């Protein structure tokens, strides 16, 4: 315990000394540092903060130092997180390479592959996107058709992906491809990495019901990929794919736990304004009751996340119940933004133009955008299937 206490106090000192004051304020949505070849920073402090963390290995604290991590134990990582939280330090960087690809590379990659890909991720130099869904393969992910054929030392990819988040600003893609069409669908899938600057890759953004979106359609036309970028065995990609989905769900359930700081007004603020009740009990008993329910459910959700983390520390790893987090959080988020939008009333009906302020327009767009949260990353129905089968053991 004593060693951990020492680590705690050293870490705190380091954070206090190295984390710029501006990086200790709640971030706006636009403050996220994504990294990559075309990396931009909201301000100079964000750049400095990332550089210092990279140097210390704190962008990937649990990784071995040889790959750019800090080589910390689980307990130490927990201490680091709690200290960062205490000082309100912003995460130095956020991206899918770090949170989704890297864990499976560490588990399934060869030493060469790890050495090639992990350090640039830790340093925020390469931004990754995820080539999973296809127009005909959404919930039935394993039904994917994007074809990859070996040609000597290369693999030639032809096909189409959809819902590729940030494909238009990403550098590399981790991609599920079909390398065998003669076997049951799960047995002919491979897990392949390639550069989005490769010849034959094209990208087209998808407008959503909420307007412009980070999602893209991505087309591959005879894209030639060096065969060394195949992770795991050829045709053995499904196991890796599923494991990555667990990490994705974990990311989705953590990223917005508790209140999202993207909106300035709390739900209480919004209700007070709409009802014109500056203080005291909200006069609409039904809204007040609903609001209490929302806050309570948030509390229960946070407690469950906390329990899950404590269990992980006690040696019980994240299992299929990550489906529960993805399911519950996405629906809770929808209930939150739906409630907010309903309470805003007529002020939330604006699409654009004068007559509505930014926060009102944002409330509306987030409400609309939120409809995607129970679909993308695996629909709620798929999560329910997973829970029924893998957690409850109900028969097929």
């Amino acid at each position: 315990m004593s060693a951990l206490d020492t680590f705690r106090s050293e870490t705190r000192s380091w954070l206090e000394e190295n984390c710029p004051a501006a990086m200790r304020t709640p971030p706006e949505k636009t403050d996220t540092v994504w990294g990559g070849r075309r990396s931009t920073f909201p301000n100079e402090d964000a750049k400095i903060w990332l550089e210092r963390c990279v140097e210390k290995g704190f962008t990937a604290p649990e990784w071995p130092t040889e790959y750019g991590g800090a080589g910390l134990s689980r307990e130490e990582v927990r201490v680091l997180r709690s200290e960062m939280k205490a000082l309100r330090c912003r995460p130095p960087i956020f991206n899918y390479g770090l949170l989704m690809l890297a864990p499976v590379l560490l588990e399934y990659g060869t030493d060469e592959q790890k050495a090639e890909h992990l350090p640039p991720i830790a340093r925020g130099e390469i931004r990754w996107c995820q080539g999973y869904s296809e127009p005909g393969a959404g919930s039935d992910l394993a039904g994917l058709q994007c074809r990859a054929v070996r040609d000597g030392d290369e693999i030639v990819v032809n096909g189409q992906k959809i819902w590729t988040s940030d494909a238009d600003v990403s550098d590399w893609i981790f991609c599920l491809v079909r390398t065998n069409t003669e076997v049951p669908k799960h047995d002919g899938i491979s897990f392949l990495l390639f550069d989005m600057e490769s010849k034959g890759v094209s990208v087209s953004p998808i407008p959503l019901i909420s307007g412009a979106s980070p999602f893209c359609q991505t087309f591959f036309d005879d894209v030639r990929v060096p065969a060394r970028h195949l992770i795991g065995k050829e045709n053995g990609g499904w196991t890796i794919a599923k494991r990555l989905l667990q990490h994705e769900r974990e990311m989705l359930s953590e990223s917005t736990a508790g209140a999202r700081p993207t909106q300035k007004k709390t739900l209480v603020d919004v209700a007070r304004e709409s009802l014109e009740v500056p203080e005291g009990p909200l006069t609409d008993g039904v809204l007040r009751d609903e609001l209490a329910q929302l806050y309570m459910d948030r509390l229960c959700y946070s407690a469950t996340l906390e329990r899950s983390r404590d269990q992980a520390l006690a040696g019980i790893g994240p299992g299929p119940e990550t489906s529960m987090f993805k399911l519950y959080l996405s629906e809770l988020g929808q209930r939150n933004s739906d409630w907010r939008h309903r309470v805003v009333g007529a002020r939330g009906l604006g699409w654009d133009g004068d007559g509505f302020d930014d926060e009102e327009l944002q409330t509306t767009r987030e409400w609309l955008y939120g409809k995607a949260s129970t679909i993308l990353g695996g629909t709620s129905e798929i999560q329910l299937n997973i829970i029924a089968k893998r957690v409850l053991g109900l028969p097929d």
Partner: protein
Amino acid sequence: MSEASSLVLTEEQQLIQETTRDFVADQCSVDSLRQLREKREDAGFDRALWKQLAELGWTGIIIPEEYGGAELGLAELGVVLEELGRKLAITPLISTLVAGAGCLVRAGSDEHKAAILPAVCEGDLLLALACQETARHDPYSVSTTARKDGDGFVIDGAKTLVLDGAAADRFIVVARTSGDSGERSGLSLFLVDANETGLSRKPTFLIDSRTCADLTLSGVRVDSGALIGALGAGADILDPVLDSVAASLSAEMLGGVLDTFERTVQFLKDREQFGVKIGSFQGLKHRAARWFCEVELSKSIVLKTLRALDSNDVQAPELSAACKARLSDTFRYSGEEGIQMHGGIGVTDEEDIGFYMKRARVSELLFGDASFHRDRFASLQSF
């Protein structure tokens, strides 16, 4: 039991339904909403479409024959609105006909009626009801004042979410001539020309590609003839007109509900995943079956309410409240289930289903959401 009060369509209503259905199939589509959104015209609807509705006789469908209308009931108008609602067509039928002409038919002077109603029937004149002042519909919360001034009145105040207010030629402005905001008595209705000095309007572009307007009335002077009905007793006109508006809007919403439901059931039959039609999954089947029940209940309450209004049934006000509450909830639920069952494609702008969800939200909030109408229903039932 007379045929008219039976909850099946009369032959005449069936004829109106078929005519409108053909018209809608020809003229209306969700794509026109995308176009309206891009154009951003202040009017917020297609004037050519409106002229065609006038030719069909729908713009005067509930106006007395002596003013050039068809003198039919809300039940007949409801059939038209339901069909238009199926394709989310934007028309000023509710604002001009049910709200605007509704006030005049009920309480307007002979001069008003003669001057305005024939032009409405012809599709040449648009009306709008300027009632709401805050983010929430609450008809007695009126701070706009009309002050007696010589032979006329001077109106000061502001209005919001005035449906089709960007295109209206005349407004029916609800103003307070006595009492305090929130009180039922002391409201008066005034007919105000859109070009009146002191009146300015700003169009607001809504998520469902419809346009409303915010009005500012600053020392707007009208003569005593502008008053509709008795001074201070505006609520006696407003209450039944708002019931008619709620029920008519519900009929339009029903069209949206039906289309959302039917297109989603079709999608369940067409879309394959895991090598089978997704409509074969019991999880989705049961949800579709529950949805079906809500749709059926919605159909019934709309039919029942419109007939009750037409026959001045004493139950009409509480039916109207139940109707708008039910359609608000069912349309919302339909939009949500529709999108979720469509999966990824459902959240794209390219797929139509999202427009139904947006319309559901706008319609829900117009003229009182479900919560407002439950409150009203409880008050009407004295609990």
